[in-house]
């Protein structure tokens, strides 16, 4: 009875919303619109009407993106308000991922101003500065003159420790990538803890979704960084998100200490996700004329597609299953995020005057 009363209202509410979301006609018409102005106008009369109003009054796509980001946060907050404390706090952890993306954007601006000595002028306005989950002083981040000032902006937040483990010199020489990875890892650690607090059914659903998600992200990172960034095996091992089957298995087999960690991880992937490895091998066999970079890009695209398909299947399965679980909430966020990213990609494509075909290709349509 508890589960029913916990989830009945939010289940009905979110399902009703899902029913009217993801209109393929809207996406098609936006892609077909010859200009950005016309593409944005298509959002009139949809749940994203505010975006077209913002664009009409400012002509500024970045302002529209900030508006979309605000809506995303408001969406999480609204759902949290309808949930009991434990699942609500889990959703709050999910919202932390949004917060981390915002932090990364703010730190990039700081990096641009302080390390690269570029003018960031008006760009600070596109950073969301209100409270997301933790009290972070975004103005202090952007205006920090020294690294301790930057760390101080995160005072009393879980990110402070992560920031403190880096130095200004290290960031100046190695770039922001390690810091961003560390922030992501911190979130995944917190996510794992949050999943552990959920009730048994919710825990099972959340674990199954996120462990596969993390596994595929790890595969993606290993593929991407072993070629594009030429990281050595030890550096690669540090990139792996410490969650999911692959990471746990790699730790068990002590992959990082082995002579060829990538080979060990490949073995693990082959065992758990044979389909991905088959596809990668197929790409390599049929692409004699491809360079390594092209092969790598195709592999990344294929893994991303596989990840997308797998997520879609998983969420569809959840939607047709027991309605009184956290699954409906996760599916809803997934659909919202997919829709938002499609809209973002189309608008950005229109801004850069990409062809219809190129936009469709990017969206995997």
């Amino acid at each position, binding site marked *: 009875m508890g589960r029913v009363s916990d989830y009945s209202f939010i289940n009905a509410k979110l399902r009703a919303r899902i029913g009217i979301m993801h209109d393929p006609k809207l996406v098609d*018409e936006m892609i*077909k*619109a*010859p*200009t*950005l*102005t*016309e593409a944005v*106008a*298509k959002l*009139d*009369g949809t749940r994203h009407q505010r975006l077209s109003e913002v*664009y*009409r*009054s*400012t*002509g*500024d*796509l970045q*302002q529209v993106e900030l508006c979309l980001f605000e809506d995303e946060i408001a969406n999480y907050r609204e759902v949290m308000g309808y949930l009991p404390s434990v699942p609500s706090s889990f959703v709050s952890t999910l919202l932390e991922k949004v917060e981390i993306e915002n932090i990364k954007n703010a730190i990039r601006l700081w990096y641009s*101003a*302080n390390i690269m*000595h570029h*003018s*960031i*002028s*008006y760009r*600070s*306005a*596109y950073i969301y500065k209100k409270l997301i989950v933790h009290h972070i002083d975004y*103005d202090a981040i*952007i*205006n920090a*003159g020294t690294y301790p000032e930057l760390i101080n902006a995160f005072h009393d937040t879980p990110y402070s420790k992560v920031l403190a483990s880096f130095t200004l010199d290290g960031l100046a020489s190695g770039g922001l990538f390690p810091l961003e990875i560390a922030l992501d890892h911190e979130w995944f650690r917190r996510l794992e803890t949050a999943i552990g607090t959920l009730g048994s059914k919710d825990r099972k659903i959340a674990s199954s979704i996120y462990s596969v998600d993390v596994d595929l992200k790890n595969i993606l990172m290993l593929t991407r960084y072993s070629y594009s960034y030429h990281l050595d095996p030890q550096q690669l091992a540090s990139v792996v998100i410490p969650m999911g089957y692959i990471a746990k298995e790699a730790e068990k087999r002590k992959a990082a200490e082995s002579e060829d960690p990538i080979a060990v991880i490949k073995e693990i992937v082959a065992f758990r996700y044979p389909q991905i490895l088959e596809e990668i091998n197929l790409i390599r066999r049929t692409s004699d004329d491809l360079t390594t970079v092209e092969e790598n890009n195709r592999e990344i695209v294929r893994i991303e597609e596989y990840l997308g398909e797998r997520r879609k299947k998983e969420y569809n399965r959840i939607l047709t299953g027991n309605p009184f679980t956290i699954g409906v909430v996760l599916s809803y966020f997934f659909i919202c995020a997919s829709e938002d990213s499609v809209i973002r990609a189309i608008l950005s494509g229109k801004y850069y005057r990409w062809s219809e075909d190129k936009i469709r290709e990017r969206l995997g349509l």
Partner: protein
Amino acid sequence: MSMFTRKMRMLTAVVLEKDRDNVVKALLEKGVMEFVHIDSLPSEKMHKLSAHSSEVPKAVISDMRVRVETLMKEGGIRIPDLDKKDMDDLKPLDIDSYRRALDRLTLSLQSVRDNQKTINQNINAISEIIRYAEEKSNDYLDLRVGINTHGKGEDLLGRLKMVGGIFMFSEKPYISLTLRRDSQRVTDAMDKFGWTETTDQDEQRSALGRAVSEGKRLIASLTEDLQKLSDEAAEKIRASASELSFMWITLRIHELCEHVESFFSYTKNTTLFSGWVPETDSENVGEIIYSVTGGKCIIEWTEADEMPRDEVPVEMTSPKIFKPFERMVQNYSTPEYGSINPTPFTAIAYLCMFALMFADLGQGFILLLVGIIGSAMYKKNPMKKDGIISRYLCNLLLYLGPASMVGGLLFGSCFGFSIFPALWFNFDAVVEGEEVGGLIQDIYDILGITIKFGIVIIFLGLLLNWINLIRKRRFSELVFDKNGLVGGVLYALGIWFAWGFVRSGYKTFPSSWFMAPVLITALVLIFLKEPVEFIIAKKKGEKTGGIGHLAMSTIMEFLVEVLEIFSSFLSNTLSFMRVAGLGIAHASLMSAFYDMADMPGNIIAKILIMILGNVLVIVLEGLSAGIQSLRLNYYEFFTKYFTGHGIAFRPVGLKSRTVSD
């Protein structure tokens, strides 16, 4: 108006190729034909026909029309209604020139948007500085007050503007308020002009406030510019209103023609097409084709009876007064061709249910007022988007309001007060347990009324089903089905039985000579349903199972049918108690607010509480009553006679809003 769905005929015509365009235009103007693809000709004849090929693909025309439509909406230009004159004045399509014109317009719009963007970025930059100043975050600011010792002030200003900030260079000493993070660039620029800070403490102290005021003035001016540009964009579109309307009309008519022609087939010199036309319009359509082609055509009519029923499109012809209820029926499904039009019955049943659940003269009047005002507002602003109280709801309120008022008169209720004598009985008094004369004494009597009302509705549903089955010549279903005669008889027997039990004061069950024979005959008939259908199927040569299968299905079907008849009729009938339930809840809520209003002992508070109570009751109870009435119609009434297997008739004409293949 016909009690049944509109009779249809299928037209198949052959016209000369040269007359094709005129025929298409004439049929579009008439707008009463739903075209079908010709695919039932023998294959040896089919290959002699060729499909329609167009100079400009329909998808291109549609995309272009959508593009024009988007721009018109962006500029607040009304989408025109097509008429005969537009058809007569139709110009050939010039897609390239339309594209050029649209590109020109969107390019100029884009340049306005780019200007808007630049201004917005300036506003953002200045706003950040002002915010820091107001939040006293002076650590993030870089304020300088001084003069340049060499070079020109305006040159320095030009340099500083590239960094971004608030600058006051109209009088000396100059003020520069920028962000601390840009201080290196500011210093570099100032050093080149020999900047010297003023030693005047008063100037230094007042500089920040003056700079902030200047920043605010700048923002106000930039915001005004932004608004002007926004208006300019809309104005640019409106300036092209006539051109856009012309393009839209031309594209839309060509799109419709292409749509119609996509159903056509061709031989070398002739065009062949086919489609459904309401019987009442068929003669007229035939005359139109004859007249347009000068008699050089062949027209054949196929009656709907000769076609499978599920292929014939269905149109309901309800009087205008019932139109809002027709939509209610369509939301459920489309009735089968040739069956009874459910709209008038739905309208009457819905209004009766609503009146019983939401009986209040005053609140009904409010609903009517909302309906009238809402409808007038939407009529005045045809472009206005539907709000929570949509156009449809406004129309519906024009009916629900008076229904509620009639209910209020019958039960003597006005805003929850009994200020006039009830025409039937005082509902509120009965609910409150007061002594009232007449037949209705307590809540149980009210529940009894709604159960009787439910019985009437269910029997009406059964009767309509029997008429439908007779018209469809499904006699076996008429006799044996649970919603057929046998179901009706068992239901009547059940009512008689329950009635007798209630009349005895819930003490004894009634008995009579006819009870056992009627019950046994009905059960035998239900038992015979499967064997009879088996024999009929055998006679028609349809595939049937063996005897074992028949025996098994007879027993299973009998058990399920009997169980379903008893449970579904009982639950359907008792379901109507919700009508009384909602009515009682309505009266109780009003009574509760009435008591609450007396508590403060202050006339103003009393009025306010009564107003608030009435608003809450109108919104919540009105919504509940509306939903429950709909539910009773859909689940208790429609399930008795409404199969919903029909396909809606969608003629193509100039007024068509959408077209699809």
